């Protein structure tokens, strides 16, 4: 069931009740959670917030906290699974689902009131109710009548039923074939905040970070990303006007900025070298790569000595002309456009903070090499604060730098060592256990960054699989579709499921992103074989 009126059917229902907030470990979910927390705090809605990483965690989190709870809000989790079936809730428990994972499970869509989907995406082609569900009881009634007619009627009915079943199968196949992402949940939450007139800078900032994350992680096609942020742009422009006179508080601005990760807290050379957007095109894994990077810097007019020192202590002139210099030099090296309109948080007496730095910082925190996920989640929430001093953002930026370095090293070593194997329709690489980088890509998010890097370094025309060890016996397998930067719909979700069935490997489809699975390392070769056979 979809909610029509965000304010009356969702928020006002929660008012005055205890709420269980289950939040997935991803940037969008954390931003959404930050916005919702702000709203709940204003209205004294007491809540319990539990981060969840997968279906089984979702289940335990629900079971541990379901006492006396009548309203559960799921952020970026639960939309793609049949909630009622998996959680077995009491009759009067209501689930509000705000999930950008698509496709939405059909049982959730047609649930009559227990599962309520907060946002209806227009891009989803949800099959009609009658095509999917059918009352079976009517079928059982044998029509009374004379022998031959009755028989004919039965046969006719059976045939109709078979046709319907076939049609249902095709429809469901088409519907669930690809896994993809919808509009960022934070944009929906921002909309809600705006409807109840509580759309302040903290909410705008959180939504900006979520929007930037969908761009940076290629969750959505570029055009859709732009459309998603439409309302955000308007709110930011509106806020600008009201705050024009005083710069005493923080605010978000939309500016053209260099699309390099973390360059404000790094050096320009390091940012170029580790940028997932530019790095693959410089072909740094080749011998000529390093020379090409130096050439680029020379074309930009940046002395190496300056480019290698921290950005904040670089020559002011160079800092000022970084954007124009890079834009001028990029076409010569056949690099993609290096600048984008970026959301930047401007704070009094503090350096500006671009939204997409925080995206990487959050990635660094929730998939930290040493910190546990839960702890990282708390830090990630704190790093979204617009005011006050907290160490979390700094911690996250440092972690992100280390992780990006590891990812770069990993991909370059893989490509230069020719460890990117070709297997029929797709290529794949495996991160060996025990390598120093393996620690960094234990989680699906950083592994995804590495896989997309490898994919775009090879031209990006073939689907790509990446696998990394999770612990001693299990490994993570992640698929990137061909031309992921234009069409991020992922076919691997359904393919993994079928290959698992065929190979008999005990694959756990427990992560909410269908294109990532975990499986025992021993069964990986046979699973890959099955996948090759399936996709060939």
């Amino acid at each position: 069931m979809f909610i029509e009126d965000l304010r009356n059917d969702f928020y006002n229902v929660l008012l005055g009740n205890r709420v269980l907030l289950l939040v997935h470990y991803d940037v969008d979910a954390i931003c959404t959670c930050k916005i919702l927390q702000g709203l709940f705090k204003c209205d004294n809605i007491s809540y319990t917030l539990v981060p969840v990483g997968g279906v089984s965690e979702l289940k335990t989190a629900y079971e541990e906290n379901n006492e006396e709870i009548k309203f559960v809000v799921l952020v970026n989790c639960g939309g793609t699974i049949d909630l009622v079936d998996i959680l077995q809730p009491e009759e009067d428990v209501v689930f509000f689902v705000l999930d950008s994972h698509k496709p939405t499970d059909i049982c959730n869509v047609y649930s009559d009131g227990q599962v309520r989907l907060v946002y209806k995406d227009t891009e989803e082609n949800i099959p009609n109710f009658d095509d999917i569900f059918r009352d079976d009881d009517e079928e059982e009634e044998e029509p009374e009548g004379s022998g031959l007619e009755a028989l004919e009627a039965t046969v006719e009915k059976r045939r109709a039923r078979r046709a319907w079943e076939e049609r249902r199968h095709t429809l469901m196949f088409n519907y669930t074939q690809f896994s993809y992402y919808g509009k960022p949940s934070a944009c929906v939450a921002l909309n809600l905040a705006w409807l109840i007139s509580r759309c302040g800078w903290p909410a705008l900032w959180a939504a900006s970070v979520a929007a930037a994350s969908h761009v940076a992680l290629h969750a959505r096609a570029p055009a859709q990303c732009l459309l998603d942020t439409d309302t955000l742009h308007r709110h930011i422009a509106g806020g600008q006007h009201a705050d024009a006179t005083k710069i005493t508080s923080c605010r978000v601005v939309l500016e053209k900025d260099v699309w390099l990760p973390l360059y404000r807290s790094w050096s320009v050379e390091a940012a170029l070298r580790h940028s997932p957007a530019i790095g693959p095109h410089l072909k740094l894994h080749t011998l000529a790569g390093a020379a090409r990077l130096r050439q680029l810097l020379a074309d930009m007019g940046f002395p190496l000595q300056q480019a290698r020192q921290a950005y904040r202590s670089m020559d002011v002139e160079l800092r000022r002309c970084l954007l124009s210099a890079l834009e001028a030099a990029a076409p010569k090296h056949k690099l993609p456009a290096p600048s984008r309109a970026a959301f930047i948080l401007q704070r009094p007496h503090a350096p500006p903070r671009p939204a997409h730095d925080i995206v990487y910082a959050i990635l660094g925190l929730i998939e930290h090499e040493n910190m546990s996920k839960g702890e990282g989640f708390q830090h990630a929430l704190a790093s979204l604060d617009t005011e006050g001093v907290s160490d979390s953002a700094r911690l996250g930026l440092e972690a992100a730098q280390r992780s990006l370095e590891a990812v770069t090293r990993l991909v370059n070593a893989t490509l230069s060592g020719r460890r990117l194997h070709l297997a029929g329709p797709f290529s794949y690489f495996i991160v060996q256990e025990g390598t120093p980088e393996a620690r960094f890509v234990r989680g699906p998010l950083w592994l995804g960054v590495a896989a997309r890097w490898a994919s775009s370094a090879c031209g990006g025309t073939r689907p790509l699989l990446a696998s990394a060890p999770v612990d001693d016996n299990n490994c993570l397998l992640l698929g990137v579709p061909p031309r992921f930067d234009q069409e991020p719909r992922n076919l691997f979700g359904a393919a993994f499921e079928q290959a698992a069935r065929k190979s008999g490997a005990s694959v756990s489809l427990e992560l909410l992103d269908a294109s990532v699975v975990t499986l025992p390392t021993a069964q990986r070769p046979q699973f890959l074989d099955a996948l090759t056979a399936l996709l060939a």
Partner: protein
Amino acid sequence: MFAEKVIELLKEAERNPDTIDPFNDEKIRQILEEMHLLFKMNMNDANATNENKSLWTTVQVRHSALERNKRCLLAYLYDRMKKIKTLRWEFGSVLPPDVRELLSDEEYQWFSKYSTNLASYMRSLGQDIGYSGIDLTENLKPPKSLYIEVLCMADHGKLELEDGDVITLKRNSRHFLPTAECQTLIRQGVLKQIV
């Protein structure tokens, strides 16, 4: 003689206007003795010299000293009573033993009576609208917010709130709870307030 002791007593009490001193038994006994003495001397003089009016001035001076003593003692007791009243609001109905020692027996009796009175008054509040009383001592100043956000630092198990809700406190889960309910847990280190 002549109300010197009582002034000393008051001066001593005045030195710590915010805290309560031990009940000064010894000095009060001395003052009462002095008053008895004055009274006795007055009685003697008044009876002996019914005719002789030359002693009347003396009697009058003694009498005013007597009255002054009385007034000062009452002031001393009244001041202590006010302090004891604030003790009830600060410490609740049970006094810590070190504070209890500072009170005299009568004062402690008064304290218990006051405490009972206050408790029964607080219980009676709001009964007409269905509440079973309000704890007035809970928020002496208006709280900034009724709820605070807390992060759970350890697996603590279940916690039952006053309104009957049960929540599970597990490491790394966040809760938004009524301030009053979490104070003790914050002090124990199970929860951490997030500002």
